[in-house]
């Protein structure tokens, strides 16, 4: 935990979460965690040219198409969230 967090943990935590998308917290649900993981992975594939080429070769698609479908998948990579129990 950074010193920034240690002293002002609660007041700052929310702010930090808003700032650093993808950071986990104690109450993170499984769905949220896996969705973050997938989005991070997809963003990493987009960001590393070799990975995008690798997938394009395997799938027989143009790199542009692979990138597009990856970006599209970032919207909801793991399907809709589970229903809340109290619903």
């Amino acid at each position, binding site marked *: 935990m950074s010193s920034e967090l240690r002293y002002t943990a609660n007041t700052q935590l929310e702010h930090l979460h808003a700032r650093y998308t993808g950071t986990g917290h104690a109450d993170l649900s499984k769905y949220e965690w896996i969705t973050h993981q997938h989005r991070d992975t997809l963003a990493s594939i987009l960001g590393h040219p070799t990975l995008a080429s690798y997938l394009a070769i395997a799938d027989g698609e143009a790199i542009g198409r692979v990138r597009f479908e990856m*970006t599209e998948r970032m919207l909801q990579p793991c399907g*809709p969230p589970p229903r809340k129990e109290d619903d």
Partner: protein
Amino acid sequence: MHLYNLTLQPPTAIIQAIVGNFSGIRQQEIIVSHGTRLELLRPDPQTGKIATIIATDAFGSIRSLAAFRLTGGTKDYAIVGSDSGRIVILDYDPKTSSFVKLHQETFGKSGARRIVPGQFLATDPKGRSVMIAAAEKAKLVYILNRDAAANLTISSPLEAHKNSAIIHHIIGVDVGFENPMYAALEVDYSEADQDPTGEVFNKTEKMLTYYELDLGLNHVVRKWSEPTDPRANMLVQVPGGQLASSERYDGPSGVLVCCEDHIIYRHIDVPQHRIPIPRRQNALEDPNRGVIITAAVMHKMKGAFFFLLQSEDGDLFKVTIEHEEEEVKSVKIKYFDTVPVASSLCILKSGFLFVASEFGNHYLYQFQKLGDDDNEPEFSSTSYPSFGMADPSSPLPRAYFKPRPLENLAIADEIESLDPIIDSKVLNILPNSDTPQIFTACGRGSRSTFRTLRHGLEVEESVSSELPGIPNAVWTIKTSEDEAHDSYIILSFVNGTLVLSIGETIEEVQDTGFLSSSPTIAVQQIGADALLQVHPHGIRHVSADKRVNEWRVPQGKTIVTATTNKRQVVVALSSAELVYFELDLDGQLNEYQERKAMGSTVLALSIGAVPEGRQRTPYLAVGCEDQTVRIISLDPDTTLETLSLQALTAPPSSICIADMLDASINKSQPTMFVNIGLQTGVLLRTVLDPINGQLTDTRTRFLGTRPIKLIRVTVHGNPAILALSSRSWINYTHQNLMHFTPLIYDNLDYAWSFSAELNPEGLIGIAGNVLRIFTIPKIGTKLKQDSIPLDYTPRKMITHPENHYFYMVEGDHRVYSEEAINKKLKELKSQGKKIDQEILDLPPTEFGRPKAPAGTWASNIRIIDPIEGKTVGVFPLDNNEAAFSIAVVPFSARGSELHLVVGTSQDTTVSPRTCTTGFLRTYKFLNDGAGLELMHKTETDDVPMALLAFQGKLLAGVGKSLRIYDIGKKKLLRKVENKMFTTGIITLATQGSRIIVGDMQESVQYVVYKSPENRLLTFADDAQPRWVTALTMVDYNTVIAGDRFGNVFVNRLDSKVSDQVDDDPTGAGILHEKSILMGAPHKTKMLAHFHVGDIITSFHKASLVAGGKEVIVYTGLHGTIGILLPFVSKEDVDFISTLEQHMRTEQPSVVGRDQLAWRGYYVPVKSVVDGDLCETYAQLPAAKQSAIANELDRTVGEVLKKLEQMRVTASGF
């Protein structure tokens, strides 16, 4: 273990290309990003050829590039978005020929992260600001300006973040001189993330948002945001703004939104225009599949503009916008031409189109016309109700075009690219070669190739003619010094001399004044317009009016060797005396009064060319039989005094003094090199100190088995040296650094430069009794490529132990096989559909193949003869089967008869990886391996991704299980199985009874086969998960592997464990050992780790030079070929790693990435020295070089020599 990593062939894939006037001159240049490398290319508008100006390793991953020019400026700058968490502005400095970092602004963490900008770059067309964005949320705007001294300035960043917005694309909107505006294509996921019903997800809109940078308030505001097509993927800038002078609008401004199947023109508060993306009229097209645009370029000409958009099939469409002032009247689209699918398109003002292909070779096309008046159908937004936007949610009626060969473009140049290398082999197969070749399976889809790579420069032969006898030397000569081209070719035979004149034809001439009855030792065009011939009995000085002055050798002596330049002549007599002549101001050749006795027979002489504006060159190099080379002064004050002496290991055969530029020694001036060729085939290169004539910095190199001949020539305008031994080599300057490369050509006995009108920069050589005239077309690429076309993406290839053929499996996803095509066409014909055969017959190499639905495969087994360079046989697979693995197995049950086993699978889906059935196809070899006969097919439950011959049986990695099969009559018989692998076996290696398994996600595992108990047991694995792509065994306990993220690592098993496992006869011990970390009972130790930056596709243990030590050769997906060589001594490790440390501080990355962090991207770098970084030592300024050398207690020369030695002894490159 310590390794030294050296890239022999940097990646050739182009990720992005930008065009601009980076040198600040009128000529346009292209900067390309090879992912980890930046290269500046200059297309020559006259010849249409592309030349590389510089290439720099970035030591980081370049993700985006943009060119921009400050308002009113004439020079473009390059902005680089990378994984360094920094934005970098680069300026190309033509004086030093390097990229200079003007600004480097840090904004975030390093790494290609989701919310750290670097993924997208957009610039304001007027060069006032730049936006850099991440894949999600983050967008930063920097204001660019110039200060009072006209230097470029950059502001602090302004945020334009939008939380939980996925960014598809950003672009600068052309608004003239109003506040800079950016358009972004975004999707917000926050609401969809909260809705369990999935309704919101279906309704989530893709927004086209304009961000305005208010220059007055220094603030970015969201100006406008409107939903657009949910399948939009790209934005293209439309020109806009007013010209200050004419008040005429450049264009309507706004953006083209490229969506699946159509393109929409949009701008704030104006009607939208929608046009369809035309589709190919192919009977085999999948009607459910949309077409997207993957590359686009806009080109502005005087008063007009157009767009070229490329679809994912490679078709270029020309889009034009008709407008009145700011009002768009119509948007039109028509088919233009088909070129390879590009990662970037660049249009040059000189009428060229640069296509940076996403896979395979890159092309430069010249525009023949702009497709203005042809019969292509044009689709206009006006022909649809409300400009095609009557019902935005439903598609427009489909538009079709007929693809055809190039009409508007013509190929001007081609840049060879290995990208992607899928598999390779390192072998010495070709005849007359003492070094191995690299055979690579490259490319994707119909543009795949099998390439043979040989180290050396390509030679283009223009003339080859037989001579009556075997000459021993050849020269060309001009008749006077101001002539542009050579006039005569002089051939010296054992008993005479032949003079040929160069004109329309080449014919013999008699009246040149040359003595034809005697052999010739040297010829020279001397003084203004005189000629000189040195023959064994004298020197003939032929003046322009054909008067001959002859100096005769004293009785009983002959001339043994001579050297000449424009003003000086030195001959060595058989009495071991040197005679020196110099031209006086009247053009008379005067002998120096004294002769110098050398005391030992002179074998070789050399003087350099007369320096510009001087009377003479002051140094003469004399090589004597007593194994020495002496430097003798020719200065008037100290004429013929010996200045220095160098002892040799063998008698010299040839010496050549040449002034050549080598920036590692002297940045500004050419260095005087004395090259000494020995009779043993060793070449010594020493530097001659111009002040005192001392010889320093000796480097040696073995060239071949014959005595060396050295000849000074000119290549690409620069002095170069040809060194002829059992191979021909050339020593030349390229990008200011010295290179030494063999020529891929017949052995030459003698050579000289040759210049004629048609061939201004040629070389002439003799090989036996054949006279050859040739040129060296490209000096940048050191690997000569010969390629054979393939049908589909190669997957794996293997060699045969007894013949020289390669057996390859190739296969493509989403492609119909021949069989499927015929079936489909028959079906369509029976339905009465018309089929345009012309379109079906278009060559797939240029047009690709129609895209089939996922799960459709086309696959072949191919036999290639690498010596003849042709395909010997192709065996297509039927029933939607695709081949993934191949092995040659000597089944001991069949008396070790060799069989080919191919692992295939039917109806394979890529993700998740499944198939209906896998097969192991067993073939018999026919006709000495040139044919195959299918024996039987064995069904498997998963895709067999890895096959290997193992102890007279077949070892197969089938999905998650490892099996051993033996051959049977009707099938292969499963003998043993181990199903304990986690994800999927993708590669195998073996030694003895040990098997190394590379798992798709779970790193490298050591397995042992215990034959008495018939058990396959995993006894050791890696503590880390690794997504292995390739591996090879370095020794019995050590394995080197590469993973999908570009890492190379070496794992070693403890030798105690190894012995213990081997000593256990039944394997019962291993079976009952406790597992560690839920894996095998033993763990391997990681010895070395290094991030190469390219996905490794193959490893080989091979020696690249004759008699050299073994190194690890690897190939990378993007076309990288590199080596890892082990250090021999501890001193070397200390020395090179200290040098590396210094280089890290002295040579910061051009993209601002920390080199140490880059090489330790995923795991800290361990025991590997980055040779590419160390070699940039040669490019450092002299002061820094000597500072580092001082720290290392060495001289600059010693450091350079060590670096060169590392490279040369390991690779010969």
